[in-house]
């Protein structure tokens, strides 16, 4: 969604073409991200001729401030939906930055890893908005990601296993 998409595109801005093809996964309720992504990829294609990307939508796992019990139901539904997608894409790297959408995809990837089908490296970058506390996705993925990146020193202190590179968006 919105801010998350802007942040992730900035993160991608300096990556080489080794990180290709790029598969963007976002919530079906998200109206604006597709345009931002296409615009980013169009610009990128001007420099890198063989640039490849795909777009996939999954059901949003949780609305802001949705209740706990209904969140579990919708998240499970999103996981069931993203499992075949993740299986199809078999990513080497999953880069995510916080919307609830990323949790089902990461959980799917973890399951595929446990089953010996495909082991993806999960890199989570917490949003620049998070100065003192982690988002809910962050709290969950702190334990399940391979690399957990924070953008403010307070968070590095509170979450010592995280990586602090300063502001990167």
């Amino acid at each position, binding site marked *: 969604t919105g801010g998350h998409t*802007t942040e992730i595109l*900035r993160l991608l801005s300096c*990556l*080489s073409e080794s990180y290709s093809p790029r598969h963007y996964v976002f919530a079906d309720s998200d109206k604006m991200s597709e345009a931002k992504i296409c615009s980013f990829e169009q610009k990128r294609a001007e420099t890198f001729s063989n640039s490849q990307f795909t777009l996939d939508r999954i059901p949003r796992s949780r609305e802001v401030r949705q209740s706990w019990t209904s969140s579990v139901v919708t998240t499970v539904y999103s996981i069931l939906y993203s499992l075949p997608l993740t299986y199809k894409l078999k990513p080497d790297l999953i880069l995510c930055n916080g919307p609830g959408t990323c949790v089902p995809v990461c959980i799917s990837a973890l399951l595929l890893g446990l089953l010996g089908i495909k082991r993806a*490296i999960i890199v989570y970058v917490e949003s*620049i*908005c998070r*100065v003192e506390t982690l988002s809910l996705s962050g709290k969950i993925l702190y334990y399940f990601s391979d690399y957990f990146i924070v953008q*403010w020193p307070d968070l590095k202190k509170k979450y010592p296993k995280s990586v602090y590179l300063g502001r990167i968006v």
Partner: protein
Amino acid sequence: FRFKESLAEDLRRADLVISHAGAGSCLETLEEGKPLIVVINEKLMNNHQLELAKQLHRDGHVFCCNCSTLVETLQSMDLSTLKPFPPGQPEKFALFLDKVFGF
């Protein structure tokens, strides 16, 4: 207007921006190098949205106030005390990731 696709044009022409504490609004404004007053309404906002506004204020990049103190802030502010906001460095992220994958 209620909603525009992009405020970039308006931002570029502005001399001063008064905004709510949304992260996108704050960061876009600071990146354009415009002075910013962040108006905080604790009742309406998600708690976490305040974190960034508070930090930016602590670091001297923005002025903060609430609805009732806005006028006073406008009257007494000294824009020269605001510190410039250096851009983020996605290159550092790229370097980090390259190391992870051995590129």
